[in-house]
């Protein structure tokens, strides 16, 4: 179970997420700063909802205020076409 891959873009596993929460992370941002989850090509579109469920269960509803903010661009764009 702990070997489940949650973030495929950055290769982050469930056990690393649980460890980050153990170390004091209480938000998606906090987990991300500890293991790079959500920093990959899809920018957390795939992994953030799963982490949100884990946080709700482990930390409580308060943790959900600090979800990753939408940061431009909405999807990857070539630098020359901005």
């Amino acid at each position, binding site marked *: 179970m702990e070997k489940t891959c949650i973030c495929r873009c950055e290769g982050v596993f469930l056990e690393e997420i649980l460890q980050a929460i153990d170390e004091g992370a*209480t*938000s998606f941002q906090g987990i991300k*700063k500890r293991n790079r989850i959500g920093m990959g*090509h899809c920018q957390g579109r795939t992994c953030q909802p799963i982490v949100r469920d884990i946080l709700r269960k482990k930390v409580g509803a308060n943790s959900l205020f600090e979800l990753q903010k939408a*940061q*431009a661009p909405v999807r*990857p764009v*070539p*630098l*020359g076409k901005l």
Partner: protein
Amino acid sequence: MKQKVVVIGAGIIGTSVAYFLSKKNVNIVLVDAKDIASGTSGACDKAIMLQSKKWGPALELAIQSATLYKDLEQELQQDLEYRQGGGLILIDNEQDLKVLQQTVEKQNSIGLNVKILTGDEVRKKNPYLSEKIIAASWCEEDAEINPMLTAFAFAKAAHKNKAILRLNCEVLDLVTENNRILGVQTTHGKIYADSVVICSGVWTNQILKTVQLEVPIIPRKGIILVTEKLPKIIDCNILSGSYIVSKLQKEQNSIPYGIGLAISQTKSGTLLIGGSREFVGFDESIKTKIIRDIAKQAIHAFPCLDNIHLIRSFAGFRPYTPDNMPILGEIPSVQGLYIAAGHEGDGVALAPITGKLMSELITNQKIEFDLSPFSIERFLESTIS
């Protein structure tokens, strides 16, 4: 009884202060309203650059800090993505070259090894650079580090040395009696201490106002673009000379959004492309115009980036001070209260030396550095008179 110290703020500065204190015979509590590196230190670039530093005491501080960085990975026993890969300041016109040449002469006169390279020499170092680059200054001493990893590593090492970490714990008030610090009031109760160090970056005034003090630290917003992962194309710090030159000529206010290119590649392969400098309070929104202008400057220097994908952008707030120097030292009106904040765009570079000097100051050791130019008094005087 052991001296007890509360450190407020777990950014790269507060964690460094806590780490260096933890090597001494002191009880430490490191408190953060949110999390380690949740403030500016989690939304910034990674340069430890010497050749871009302001002349004078700030440069001396930076040089000592750069030396401490060299052994830090070994000391903390952790990979911090440290690399002394050198740094380039790119020049694309004769006028800027003249100004930069003068600076380089000055830098050489104090023994900082910076030299001017021709366009072809620069392209030998990095073949992806545009033909429009006619020269660059090169400093071998420039380095880089992952600031988030560093803040976490400092905190971890401090914790190993018995420092207590209190996250999600906001300081609401300073507890004082007869102009002496007694501790802090937090959202989770009082913590008593002999000394308190304020390392809360852009949020410093919220704490200082509880003892009727104010410093001119204000947020100076910066935006950074993050690209998709690429094979290694950049292996040193790169800045554009145009911003540096206008800064030297004190004309930086004339540059729209204060945009000056800063580009480097992370270990994971993404490029970090900065940046802007704006005084807009704590507004986190990101203007498309600024993203576009930064991207344009990046393509001007590296034409091959035209088709590279931008995957993200973020905004951080530099703790600006009017003389671009941090405030370090004891606060004269409250015995036992210290401040280490206002590192503006140099906090990453200056973190180790800040931690070391503050730990010596707080434990009453002899300090081999003149901290008086960094004293809070330079800002307090004007309000008194």
